């Protein structure tokens, strides 16, 4: 988790650095009075690297992926809930009273 | 571009902030007052039934492929046959919402209460703002705007030379009135009484027309193509078993 977060921060920093370099580059071009056609190669590479880092961090940091397969352990339904709205008390438990001593004290 | 105006910090402390706080508090008050005044509605059995019917028909549409063709056809006939299908609404029998409103005085009363709880505090606060805070330049928004926004942002200031990005106090009131909805849904929860859009919808549609949605559900049920999914499951089960056995 900490590693993912660090990578994410690093990725964001790289993106910022790429932005900063682009601005610098444009300033340079303005001085040299050339047209801006696209950022230089190394900035593009930096951008891609930052993108990959950010995506990786975004996929690992927020949490684990949960299974959506119906037969995975988290989703496999093994029993239905007791239909408690239709619960009846007139059952054989009546014949076997509880052994323990229960009382609500106040 | 006009000269920058220097706004007194006292305006911020005594106009801008109090106005915003008052607007928030009034919104909360209105929420609770309307909650108090709302009469607890006993839902009508017919409306409940129609709602449940729509849910069930939708389930049938969604899960159609999981039941055998014969069962599906029987159900579809049950829902949408022309004689006594549940989703079939005979023509001319659809209740007119207007008539319903007059027949049920409680409904009209509810509307009135809602409107009153909306209008009275609004007029009062507007009068109050007008009386105490008229004519201030209360804030400046950080981006330029065109002249068309003057009437929206500088209500109460009749100067055409002031830059449009300055906001007068009365306009600040209006901005707060309409712009605080998001904040209210944060503070008071989603279904708060201050939600204007929802009320607008209720007013125009006057509840929803159940017969219409029944008809729509019937139409979409009629065009469902039944393609039984279960035969495919035998192959899938074989694949599953092969996988766990290997």
């Amino acid at each position, binding site marked *: 988790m900490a590693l993912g977060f660090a990578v994410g921060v690093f990725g964001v920093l790289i993106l910022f650095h790429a932005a900063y370099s682009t601005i610098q580059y444009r300033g340079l071009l303005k001085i040299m009075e050339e047209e801006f056609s696209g950022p230089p190669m190394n900035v593009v590479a930096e951008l891609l690297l930052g993108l990959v880092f950010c995506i990786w961090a975004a996929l690992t940091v927020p949490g684990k992926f949960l299974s959506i397969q*119906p*037969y*995975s*352990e*988290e*989703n*496999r*339904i*093994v*029993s*239905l*809930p*007791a*239909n*408690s*709205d*239709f*619960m*009846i*008390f*007139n059952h054989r*438990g009546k014949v076997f*009273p*509880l052994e*323990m001593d*229960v*009382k*609500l*004290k*106040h | 571009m006009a000269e920058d105006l220097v706004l007194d910090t006292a305006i911020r402390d005594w106009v801008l902030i109090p106005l915003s706080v008052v607007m928030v508090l009034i919104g909360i008050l209105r929420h609770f007052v309307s909650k108090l005044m709302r009469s607890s509605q*006993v*839902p009508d*059995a017919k409306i*409940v*039934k129609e709602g*449940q*019917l729509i*849910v*069930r028909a939708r*389930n*049938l549409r*969604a*899960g159609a492929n*999981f*039941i055998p063709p014969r*069962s599906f056809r029987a*159900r579809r006939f049950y829902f949408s046959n022309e004689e006594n299908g549940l989703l079939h609404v005979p023509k001319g029998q659809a209740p007119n919402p207007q008539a319903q409103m007059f027949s049920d005085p409680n409904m009209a009363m509810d509307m009135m209460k809602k409107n009153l709880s909306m209008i009275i505090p609004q007029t009062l606060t507007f009068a109050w703002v007008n009386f105490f805070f008229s004519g201030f330049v209360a804030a400046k928004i950080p981006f330029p705007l065109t002249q068309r926004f003057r009437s929206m942002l500088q209500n109460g200031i009749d100067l055409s030379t002031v830059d449009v990005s300055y906001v007068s106090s009365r306009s600040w009131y209006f901005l707060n009135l309409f712009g605080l909805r998001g904040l209210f849904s944060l503070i008071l929860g989603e279904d708060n009484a201050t939600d204007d859009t929802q009320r607008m919808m209720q007013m125009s549609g006057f509840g929803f027309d159940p017969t219409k949605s029944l008809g729509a559900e019937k139409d979409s049920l009629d065009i469902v193509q039944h393609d039984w999914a*279960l*035969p495919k*499951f*035998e*192959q*899938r*089960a*074989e694949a*599953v*078993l*092969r996988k*766990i*056995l290997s």
Partner: protein
Amino acid sequence: MVSKTEETQLSNLETQVDNGGGGAWEYLCLVRKLKVRRSDRVLKHGLSILNDPKKRSSLGPDEWTLYEQVAVAAMDCQSLDVAKDCIKVLQKKFPESKRVGRLEGMLLEAKGAWAEAEKAYSSLLEDNPLDQVIHKRRVAMAKAQGNVSVAIEWLNKYLEIFMADHDAWRELAEIYVSLQMYKQAAFCYEELILSQPMIPLYHLAYADVLYTLGGLENLQNAKKYYASTIDLTGGKNTRALFGICLCSSAIGQIAKGRNKDDKESPELQSLAATALEREYKQKASDKLSLLTAALKGLKVSS
């Protein structure tokens, strides 16, 4: 719906709580969330919390939920005094509450005072004729008295209005099965599959009903639904595996007399049989011989 992980969690907590390891409140919350019926344990551990003033006050507003839970559990265990005390406390806190009124009705039911319970419920229904839970209580009451036909009648009336309530459909299906009215039960299970198509247990129950009904078409359909159960559970449902074997054998017997033109997949049954054998080998190797004998009897074992 109780998933496998939740079930393990529940049983872990159960052993922990039973051995005095604490975590009683978490256990009770889980029981409430999963809606399982563990009345004796809920009664015991719930009371141990309620009787301890320090623990009770630390719950905050959840205290009242616990009172309700314990009251119902006590009724289920026939500890009517405890239930009565709990309801009294709740009544003091929430006078005129309909929910407490419902609990009182249930207490009357548990006592067996049917007429009085009926009276209590009908007076509650007068205030709110669309109270779903009370309608359901009336059904349960008829069932508890043994008037199953009355219960079916009530339930059908209830479902005419609240037709999207799958709990009620399930109850109706189970009643029909208990009366051996399988066609009606099949209808109810179809309704359940429609409302929650991804729950394998409904497919399984529907397949069981179809198999019981018999007839070539029903058997083939039953086999398909057993297959879908296997697919949805990843082959971990033993009953579905047995179902496949039984269906195949029954279909084979019926089809023997006629010309064999159906393109049954012969593999599925042998696969199911092998899967069963493997499962038995892993979990109950001493019963493996029984299984092989049974499968041989069905002539599906390869």
